[in-house]
């Protein structure tokens, strides 16, 4: 009897635990496709999430001068804020210079980050065309794309970053 009782209570406790963990009052409001489209600004390395639009190196140079150069220096050389160009080939040199072009594995990250977080004083203010153009311009400085390149949702994910194979994934790992 006592064995049965303890087994019963053990089972009841187990159910209760599962119930407490999993059971909410179901108050989530269904999101519409239109709402999701508005909020979903993530760009994946395969290019999913990239919007319509395009931008050339030359138009990017003009936007850069006007909205970025004050913080990031001429041609992304840095100062007062982060250096954006150069440093390619330095990672194993003992004096690594980590920049978006020398270190970041995906060109999509540049688009994603500039669009969500830059310019610093007015984030999310650039048009999609401007973000494509800035991406093209910054990648052209180190000849990752040609000087006459035009980037869009199709061409951007195909850009081969110098350090694209430079990362070793730690997760998942058994500790």
């Amino acid at each position, binding site marked *: 009897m006592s064995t049965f009782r303890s087994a019963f209570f053990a089972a009841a406790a187990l159910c209760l635990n599962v119930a*407490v*963990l*999993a*059971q*909410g*009052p*179901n*108050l*989530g*409001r*269904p*999101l519409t496709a239109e*709402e*999701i489209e508005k*909020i*979903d*600004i*993530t*760009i*994946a*390395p395969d290019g999913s999430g990239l919007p319509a639009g395009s931008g050339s190196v030359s138009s990017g140079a003009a936007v850069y001068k006007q909205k970025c150069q004050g913080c990031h220096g001429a041609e992304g050389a840095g100062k007062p804020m982060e250096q954006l160009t150069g440093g390619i080939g330095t*990672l*194993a*040199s*003992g*004096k*690594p210079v*980590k920049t*978006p072009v020398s*270190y*970041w*594995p*995906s060109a*999509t*990250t540049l688009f*994603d*980050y500039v669009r*969500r*977080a830059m310019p*610093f*004083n007015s*984030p*999310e203010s650039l048009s999609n065309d401007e973000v494509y153009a800035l991406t093209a311009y910054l990648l052209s400085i180190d000849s990752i794309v040609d000087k006459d390149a035009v980037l869009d949702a199709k061409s951007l994910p195909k850009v081969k970053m110098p350090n694209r194979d*430079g*990362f*070793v*994934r*730690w*997760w*998942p790992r058994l*500790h």
Partner: protein
Amino acid sequence: MAKDNKAKRPEGLLDRRSLLRGSLLAAGVAGAGLGTARADENIGAGAPGWMKTPGRPFSSYGVPAKWEEKVVRSFTVAPGRAGTGASRTPLHLLEGTITPSGLHFERHHNGVPDIDPGQHELMIHGLVKRPLAFSVEALKRYPMESHIYFLECSGNGGAYNQPQPPQQTVGGTNGLLSCSEWTGVRLRTLLDEAQPASDAKWVVAEGADAAAMMRSVPIEKCIGDAMVALYQNGEALRPEQGYPMRLLLPGFEGNMSVKWLRRLQLVQEPVNARDETSHYTELMPDGKARQYMFLQAVKSIILKPSFGMNMKGPGLYEVSGLAWSGAGRVAKVEVSSDSGHSWRIAPLVEPVLPKALTRFRLPWEWDGRPAILMSRATDETGDVQPTRAQWMSQFAPGQSYHFNGIACWSVASDGTVKNVYV
């Protein structure tokens, strides 16, 4: 560093029980003097002013004593970017294990947003059957959990990568570390409601700050001990800590516990967000970098004494510090006063909780001779805190994330405490 050498006694480090016995005896002797009558009738004559006049009235929200004005977060302000960067917890000036909410370290990417909770929602979408939005009001009706967890920035202790030991307080070198009681909803409860697809392996978490800061989080963590925290130390989250809600990933690098949480997108693969490529990755000597290294590994540091807290002559002191591990509970802390030649186990102050700060204390009879103090923690998985040299050998020069090496304090015969590498 030499291993345990039983022939050599740890320099002055004492067994806590023998010390307690001694102090009881001393108290008994002192007690013999009690009961002596006072001669003067007006006891106010010798009383301090604050005992002879009514005190201040109630206040709607209490603040620390004015005498504690130096116990504050430290930070530097970049021109035009006053809300970007980090502020640090003055660990060396605090006690126990819980960080006061107003002293919790901060790391912001574009300031602290002033979010109206009535207009804020948490949206879950992507690879789910039912994309959902949760208002703050709705979340408050969900079953809540409370847990004490530390948060540590992956860059904490990064200054130890410099060739010369940083001569700063522990707050300055290791103040990107805090510990709170967090209350909120288990993330799994919300994910279950949204019904993740079987190919959803990662969750992109995004904040509602002006950087829309985002990180990719493995689904295993999200259906494990991850929380959506609404409260910290019993009150609503402070704005600097993510008001009205933040992600809380116990034991993972602080940057992933996304503040001002507004969006969780279930995806198949991580997205190489700026803060998981540019930052928080570990460059190794061969030029390759470790990515998605999330765990804040076992670590400890002595706070008393530490830089800036000089010893005042030989005598009895308490060596005290903090230990923690993102992998679970702290199992053991050893303290050495002879530069690691011999070690004594330091008692841990209960409760010893997983992924929370744990306090250790050990009496030390300092004889006034130069000494080098250090602490070494081991967690319940058996992971042992490495020396700085062991840690440094894994990485390229300049690497500063996830530093968990042993910190060493030299005590000079005049009592000056300095940071040293051994």
